[in-house]
């Protein structure tokens, strides 16, 4: 019994000492995330409400996130409104469209269909967004409408990753210097000839030369329905809107991990308080 008491007391005293270690781990994770954000891992998110399509070029904090986390990141970076249901495992509402309760099939037959981008088109997602993994360069689509299969549910308009994420990220590329003295690196020299054509590696982390970032006109997303769409698809007549970052590109999971800090503090206080009371009672009993 005495040993147990000593152990608990030791734990109570250790807890505040361990606190900085905990925070250190948390900060380490945050730093790692920030470093990867600087490495510009992005995924494209396309949300088609039926009347309007919005595209989001979402910076991924970790290397790989789940489909649900992508929506949460889009919410943090662009203010995309969403609501999850079925215990937080399914998407009920995006941009105010969809049921607001916990039943995501509340407006059945209309619901949010989930798509993965495949070669500029779409493939119907076979599993839920909570278990899907999204990594750099992936395209994810959500479309509102009826239909239980990929051939009957309306798909989002055909958009590739480059259609959504072709503007150079302000954090990655310095402003283009028009001065001729700027010598582009040999590798970038060839692409520089193509002028305003955005190259796939324009969003790369190398700011060398700044020439490839001089693509003032973002490529217009394809408006016409592509040939490979199924005939049952009603052509999406809505406009395609590119979402604008709201919070200055807030780094995902940035800032101090307040929750972890609060939890560690609560555990320390409770453990110390409990051990103190127990010790006092024991002393009272033995006296």
């Amino acid at each position, binding site marked *: 019994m005495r040993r147990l008491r000593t152990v608990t007391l030791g734990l109570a005293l250790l807890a505040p000492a361990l606190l900085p270690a905990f925070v250190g781990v948390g900060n380490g994770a945050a730093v790692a995330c920030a470093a990867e954000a600087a490495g510009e891992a992005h995924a494209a998110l396309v949300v088609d409400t039926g009347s309007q399509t919005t595209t989001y070029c979402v910076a991924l904090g*970790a290397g790989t*996130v789940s489909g649900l986390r992508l929506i949460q990141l889009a919410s943090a970076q662009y203010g995309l409104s969403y609501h999850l249901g079925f215990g*937080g495992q399914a998407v009920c509402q995006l941009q105010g469209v969809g049921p607001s309760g*916990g039943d995501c099939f509340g407006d059945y037959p209309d619901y949010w269909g989930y798509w993965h981008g495949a070669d500029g088109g779409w493939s119907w997602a076979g599993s839920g967004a909570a278990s899907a993994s999204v990594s750099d360069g992936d395209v994810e689509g959500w479309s509102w409408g009826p239909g239980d299969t990929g051939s009957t549910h309306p798909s989002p308009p055909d958009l590739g990753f480059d259609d959504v994420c072709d503007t150079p990220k302000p954090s990655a590329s310095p402003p283009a210097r028009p001065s001729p003295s700027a010598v582009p690196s040999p590798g970038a020299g060839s692409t520089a000839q193509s002028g305003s054509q955005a190259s796939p590696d324009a969003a790369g982390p190398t700011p060398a030369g700044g020439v490839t970032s001089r693509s003032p006109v973002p490529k217009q997303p394809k408006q016409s329905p592509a040939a490979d769409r199924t005939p049952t698809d009603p052509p999406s007549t809505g406009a395609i809107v590119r979402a604008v970052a709201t919070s200055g590109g807030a780094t995902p999971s940035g800032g101090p991990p307040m*929750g972890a*800090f609060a*939890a560690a503090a*609560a555990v320390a206080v409770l*453990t110390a308080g*409990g051990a103190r009371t127990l010790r006092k009672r024991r002393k009272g009993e033995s006296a």
Partner: protein
Amino acid sequence: MTLHPAAWMAWATCAGVVAFTTTDPFYLGVLVAIAWFVYATCRVPGPTARSFRVFAIGGLMAMAIRTALVFLGTVDASNVAFAALEGARLATLLIVFGTFNAVTDPFGVVRLAPRRFHEPALAAALALSIAPRTIATAGRVREAQQLRGIRTARWRGLPSLAVPVLESGMEEAVTLAESMDARGHGRGRRTRYRPAHWTPAGVAVVVAASAAAGVFLAAAWVGLGGLHPSTSPLTWPEATPWLIGVLLLLALPGIFGAFRDPVA
């Protein structure tokens, strides 16, 4: 000052509901700390006070077994983390139940049985009190066997511990049923000796615990607060500070207990 047994029952139920809604290690860790705090400040001295330790050990074993089951199938970091978090939730539930058994008199729970539903209430009361009664009996039997020079700590000595425990468990159940019958359970009329009273503290505990459980249920329903950290892909879990604050509502009985007269 002691709380009404029903208040403890409500507290344990709400804490269990909260544990059930989340697999986030931060929330579960705070909940375990709350259970320990409540145990330390409100425990009833006596043989049933051991339940906390017994259930804590049982919880850790459940967590270990739940995690070990993963190694029968495909093993990767996500699977192991998922199983460990599920196991942690199970362990937290068990620790909350252990706290409940250590802080309240199990026979006080039996007394709560409503007279209308005699048989099911008797069965439920017996089931609820079986763990603390067995733990208390095991303590008594071990002490008695040690006085006789029989060692019960080894595997070989297990029968000398288990047989009397099972025997007295049966006897106690029969005695309890008879005594409940004798006190008029199921007869429509009965008197109560020193009935437990509801105190303002008991009401406050019930209200606070229900509020905490309600908030966590609502958060789980709308998918707020990251109650289930993603394990596929594996991410560093996050916690919402205000939900930690809500969780601390469950520590209220411990705060009442810490300031009570230690002699009483």
